[in-house]
């Protein structure tokens, strides 16, 4: 009974977060000598299927018509069915909103225990333990899951990918499930902010703006700056709560947890709430008018100046240096 299920929602392809989940599953399977199953729910994505099938021992998809688009109750029901058949020791999810919504409820239905936003997986004899960041990133807790299966969702980018070897690919089993209709909740409308861009969680470089920007307009500059660096734009909670940018841009304990190679904080003071979202950033740089701003305590480098003066010059210099 040491099967592992990685549970993926199709729709974002074989992105960095998915690669991390697959990598974590593979390494855990080697460690506990278990069989690695992958469950892919949602619209049929042959590219994703084949990548996953080159790593996992078995792949099963749930892509029939009713499941093409996410519906909370229906997807939970089918994932529960599949997991009951496999009876895994561990189920791994990514950290997207569908995964976070599904994982605890799945754990409850399987009589297991869940833990979220995991940074590290450990086995200690038969016990499954995880490390997670708590108290807004100020502490790291080790949690032991006391029930089986352990249902875990993993922080994007905290886990390394593994190589996919397309020369050896297992069969993908596409099965139809007998679904009881459940119309207690029904998604009736969807909107994506039109960005072809990668998810914030996957970004290599992030330029982020805070309360000190004073309004929505400066975000245009930050977007241009991000574009020069091939990065993404984000914001602090204060900026999002003020309506200066969409909630999906929010980074922090109450927003997204990101792990870019470089995080440039513009007019962000760096309250612990915000720092909790960037504790995995490899490098942090800041532009702030106040040299006492807590953000500088975690910075690799910084500039103490008014961002209004810095940004136009910085764009110019970066564009020149990039050539």
């Amino acid at each position: 009974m040491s099967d592992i299920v990685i549970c993926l929602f199709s729709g974002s392809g074989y992105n960095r977060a998915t690669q991390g989940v697959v990598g974590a599953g593979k390494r855990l399977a080697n460690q506990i000598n278990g069989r690695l199953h992958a469950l892919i729910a949602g619209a049929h994505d042959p590219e994703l299927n084949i990548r996953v099938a080159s790593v996992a021992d078995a792949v099963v998809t749930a892509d029939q018509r009713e499941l093409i688009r996410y519906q909370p109750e229906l997807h939970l029901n089918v994932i529960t069915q599949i997991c009951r058949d496999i009876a895994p020791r561990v189920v791994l999810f990514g950290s997207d909103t569908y995964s976070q919504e599904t994982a605890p409820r799945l754990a409850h239905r399987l009589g297991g225990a869940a833990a979220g936003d995991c940074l590290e997986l450990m086995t200690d004899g038969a016990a499954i333990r995880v490390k997670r960041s708590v108290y807004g990133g100020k502490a790291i807790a080790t949690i032991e899951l006391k029930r089986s299966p352990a249902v875990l969702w993993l922080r994007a980018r905290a886990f390394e990918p593994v190589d996919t070897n397309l020369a050896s690919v297992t069969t993908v089993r596409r099965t139809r499930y007998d679904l009881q209709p459940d119309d207690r909740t029904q998604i009736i409308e969807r909107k994506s902010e039109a960005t072809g861009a990668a998810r914030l969680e996957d970004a290599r470089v992030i330029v982020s703006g805070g309360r000190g920007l004073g309004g929505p307009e400066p975000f245009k500059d930050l977007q241009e700056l991000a574009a020069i660096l091939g990065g993404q734009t984000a914001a602090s909670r204060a900026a999002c709560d003020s309506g200066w940018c969409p909630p999906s841009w929010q980074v922090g304990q109450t927003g997204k947890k990101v792990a870019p190679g470089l995080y440039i904080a513009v007019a962000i003071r760096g309250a612990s709430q915000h720092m909790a979202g960037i504790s995995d950033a490899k490098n942090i740089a800041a532009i702030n008018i106040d040299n006492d701003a807590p953000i500088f305590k975690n910075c690799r480098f910084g500039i103490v100046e008014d961002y209004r003066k810095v940004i136009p010059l910085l764009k110019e210099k970066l564009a020149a240096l990039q050539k």
Partner: protein
Amino acid sequence: MNIIVCLKQILDPEIPARDFRVDSEKKEAARGSANLVTNIFCENALETALQLREKSGGRITALTFGAEVAEDTLRKALAMKADAATLVVNDGHPHPDPLAVAQTLAAAIRKIGAFDLVMLGRESGDWGVAQTGGLLAEELGAPCVSFVDHIEASGDGLIVKRQTENGWEKLNAKLPLVVTITNNEFNVPRIPKTRDIMMSARQPITKWTLEEIGVNAAEIRAGGSYSEVVDLTVPVKEVTCEFVSGDTLEQKVERFAERIIEITRAL
């Protein structure tokens, strides 16, 4: 519509890192001089409930499971104009596991009586477990929608809007329903009026013991049958910030740009 808003009292998450200590024996943050506050997402949930009541009517009960001192969180909820408040007194483990919390809340909700909508914050600012809503929905046998930032009445159900990675989804939902609430620009918690704060001090709060709500009190008090914290440490970070220097703004920005390029090339 009977609305129950679950609230959690936590250690102020805004205390600076330099004042933060852990009690490695108890595997808890040391209280120190930090205040206890209501978790922000719980207040976003209460604010969303208040706005729904203003539009469509209903009755809001604030519910918490915590130490006696969590009464402060309920007083604030009453000052924000919740209709009633219930405290299930936790005299056991200071942070019981997520299933123990969900079972306690579920039992309290059943004792309160009929409910149409249960609202929670999407996660707490202390342990950030982010499971109470989902587990509570399972305990109550109700559907669950998470990351919700807007709710409106529609016929005999609701239309709820939830945030996704890069946008939003709207759902038709039948009652009863459990939702977890995230923040947006429209559910910033209101500041209670002084008069309402004074009035809230005199309002009754229902207090129940674990025995009175009919849960397995011994298991809830132990609070570690689902998961257990086996270690809690403060990570050591050693970063010193290089403040770029230069005689002119231009020189400083030039140096800043060079550092950015150095790092991005190495990525």
